[in-house]
């Protein structure tokens, strides 16, 4: 089979698509995680909580598909990343899955019984299902930036020597909190759009403004930590963008501050962090002025900018090993074969626009603020 795109280009495209998936997940399911995190705080009575849940009740499931697709796509395009990251961060991954499992059932089962205890239990389950994954995803990104203690043997089997508690360092917790702040801001912007005007929306806007401010501070702190804390890795010697995927042939060395090198060599990349800050600032201003669409655009731009900042600062490294110089995963040594990358690109180019098309249609049908009176009058709602 003739493959019209060369291996190097396909690898870069798939690195970009990895970013698209992460951003797609954050922009859609991000507000579901944020709304769930906000749930116990912005809504106090049962009617208020039902109203909040119904702002995402009909669409969160499709949004979560980004997460499932992310798993499948990383498996298909970056099998080394799939194999090594998830087995290394084993208990953290369990924590995320256990928390996410509570969401589908929480949404569906909460309204099935009237009892207060039943509903409060599911409210906290939904809170856990929003807060814990948001925190752990951020902590995981922090660990990726720090480098993970794994090594590969000559069969390319991976061994991880870190512990679960070792995942939580000041820097990774900072990343975790940044991630929580991002989704809370995003969720608040969503509630500003979707919730009926009233006390719940006001509370959400207030918390959202605080979260946005915290996000700006944490992002700046993270940048400073990378700059002065000396984080960074670098490929030493040949990068070999066309070579068969085998991490043992690449040498990646710990190089303090190297994560910022790309921004020096390619100043245009600074667009990403600028977007991260400016978007969050716009979101804070928007949410304070109750201009909900400006707030949503701002928080989306901010999330996009922050994720792109992480990706661009590390490029072409994906998962550095803090233990072994010959085990780090890069864009050039951790992908699928040339043919698989091409086939999966075709599948994505054909199918993703269809997905985006019908997702847009579903959101359009369900457009409009959620109204407590309608919820109380109908049995179709949660």
């Amino acid at each position, binding site marked *: 089979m003739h493959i019209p795109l060369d291996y190097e280009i396909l690898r870069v495209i798939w690195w970009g698509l990895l970013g698209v998936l992460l951003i797609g997940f954050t922009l859609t399911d991000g507000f579901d995680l944020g709304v769930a995190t906000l749930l116990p705080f912005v809504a106090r009575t049962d009617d208020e909580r039902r109203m909040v849940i119904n702002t995402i009740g009909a669409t969160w499931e499709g949004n979560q598909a980004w997460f499932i697709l992310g798993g499948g796509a990383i498996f298909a395009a970056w099998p080394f990343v*799939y194999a090594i990251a*998830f087995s290394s961060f084993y208990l953290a991954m369990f924590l995320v899955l256990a928390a996410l499992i509570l969401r589908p059932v929480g949404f569906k089962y909460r309204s099935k019984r009237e009892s207060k205890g039943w509903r409060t239990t599911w409210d906290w389950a939904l809170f856990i299902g929003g807060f814990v994954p948001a925190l752990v995803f951020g902590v995981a990104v922090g660990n990726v930036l720090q480098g993970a203690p794994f090594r590969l043997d000559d069969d390319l089997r991976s061994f991880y020597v870190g512990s679960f508690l070792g995942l939580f360092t000041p820097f990774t917790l900072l990343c975790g909190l940044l991630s929580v702040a991002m989704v809370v801001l995003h969720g608040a912007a969503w509630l500003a759009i979707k919730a009926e005007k009233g006390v719940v929306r006001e509370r959400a806007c207030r918390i959202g403004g605080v979260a946005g401010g915290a996000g700006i501070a944490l992002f700046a702190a993270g940048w400073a930590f990378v700059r002065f804390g000396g984080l960074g890795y670098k490929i030493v010697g040949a990068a070999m963008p066309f070579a068969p995927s085998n991490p043992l042939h690449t040498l990646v060395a710990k190089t303090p501050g190297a994560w910022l090198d790309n921004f020096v060599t390619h100043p245009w990349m600074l667009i990403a962090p600028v977007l991260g800050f400016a978007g969050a600032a716009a979101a804070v201003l928007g949410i304070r002025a109750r201009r909900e669409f400006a707030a949503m655009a701002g928080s989306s731009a901010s999330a996009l900018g922050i994720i792109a900042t992480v990706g661009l600062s590390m490029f072409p490294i994906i998962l550095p090993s803090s233990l072994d110089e010959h085990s780090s995963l890069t864009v050039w040594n951790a992908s699928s074969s040339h043919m698989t990358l091409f086939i999966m690109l075709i*599948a994505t180019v054909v199918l993703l626009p269809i997905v985006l098309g019908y997702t847009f249609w579903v959101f359009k049908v369900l457009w409009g603020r959620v109204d407590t009176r309608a919820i109380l009058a*109908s049995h179709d709602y949660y």
Partner: protein
Amino acid sequence: MDLGVVDLSRLQFALTALYHFLFVPLTLGMSMMLFIMEGVYVMSGREIWKTITKFWATIFGINFVLGVATGLTMEFQFGTNWSYFSHYVGDIFGAPLAIEGLMAFFLEATFVGLMFFGWEKLSKGKHLLVTFLVALGTNLSALWILIANGWMQHPVGAAFNPQTMRMEVTNFEAVIFNPVAQAKFVHTVSAGYLIASAFVFGISSIYMLRRKWMPVARRSMTVAAAFGLLAALSTVVLGDESGYTLTDNQKMKLAAIEAAWTPEPAPAGLTLFGLPDVKNRTTHLAVRVPWVLGVIATRSFDKPVASIYQLVAVAQTRITSGVQAYDAVEHLKRNPDDPAARAVFAEHGRDLGYGLLLKKYVADPRRADAALIEKTAWDTVPNVPLMFWSFRIMAFTGFFFIFLFGAAFLLTSLRRHDTRWLQWLGVIAIPLPWIAIELGWILAEIGRQPWAIDGVLPTALGASSLTRPELWTTIVGFTAIYGALAVVEVGLIIRTVKKGPYTADPEPDRPPLYPNPDAGPRRGFATPSALPAE
């Protein structure tokens, strides 16, 4: 390699997969039945069919979310617990999973919300389309998952690349149009339709026996009987047995199912009953029907069905050959251009996986002696009594449902829904298809042992390098969460069934606080008095 870790990883995979597989087949079948019921509603315009659709959709929803929740675990478990498997075959195995996400899961997950929330927001036709897309999504999802699973049973279109130490795709079309995958898809989806039919039929029978909600129950019985008969026939007739002649390991699975230790002239007989004796490698008290197995398995009268002894001998030869392939790979690791090693690999490469079987006992397969090779060859025999009995119970259940739905179809066509024995049989039969599908999973996946990927990667090598405490933590954790959710789910389904499809009076605990100009859907619910006499 810590075999304790391998066993615990297998235990966790089996627990989570078997649990996931309790909910998914019902989702598969009920999504299709909802489409049929709503289709009748749209075509006939009769409100009772909307009531029927919405009632079963409520139960569908309770079940659906658990399928989704437990599916999360499955999507990531290959990476968390089967890290080397993921590395070794991710180049092929990951693709169907990713396409499943893009083509199928996105579809069902995006539209399922609208299916529940869109009754008042969409026209009848559009809502029916949404219901159809949910059904299409769940069924396509099964297709891609079974393409991935089919490849584990019959790994076509791929080759080992010593430079990357993994299998890489050579022919993607072969992976998609894998005959084992196609057979599995038809069989599994049909079983899902069967489970949903049995469920709807059984619950409707309870209503009929209690003389409650009979207008809903009668119509549901009719749909379930017709759909169930087709499903049962398709499940049994299009069983995936036809795939059992394709590879040595699939042949071994068939031999184990039949407890066929020694060869038999073609066409082979089918063992109806017997007591497989693993220790003496024989089967006692075998009751056999001549010819049948040979005809079913080989679709011919002259091709023999391989026996366990024959297949073990084949495995022994392939292990010996695999050791040479292993040696060649060790040379190629150091020097990828070594011409001698390349030549050896070209000749013996297809047996590399058999060489790797020895790693369970020796770190370096090249140090294995003849006795160890023979012992390892016997490892390729799966658990014979388990296969033998699982198959018989599964197949018996299938034939039982052909009978049940055949009778049900006949009686409901004659408008004799109120046949007591049929209703009682329907109630008793509710749990049976679940037993059958779980046994089907056991047959397919335990029958695949000792392989993770048939002939390519032994299961013992596929596991992640985890520790036992880590595995116990997650096994206990998943068991606790899953156990609690099972109790909640069953409780909610029973509650929904007890509450029934409609109430004559408005619910006392939900007074109409605000007058609703749209009247709400409750008014749309047909009450028995509003229905024409049956």
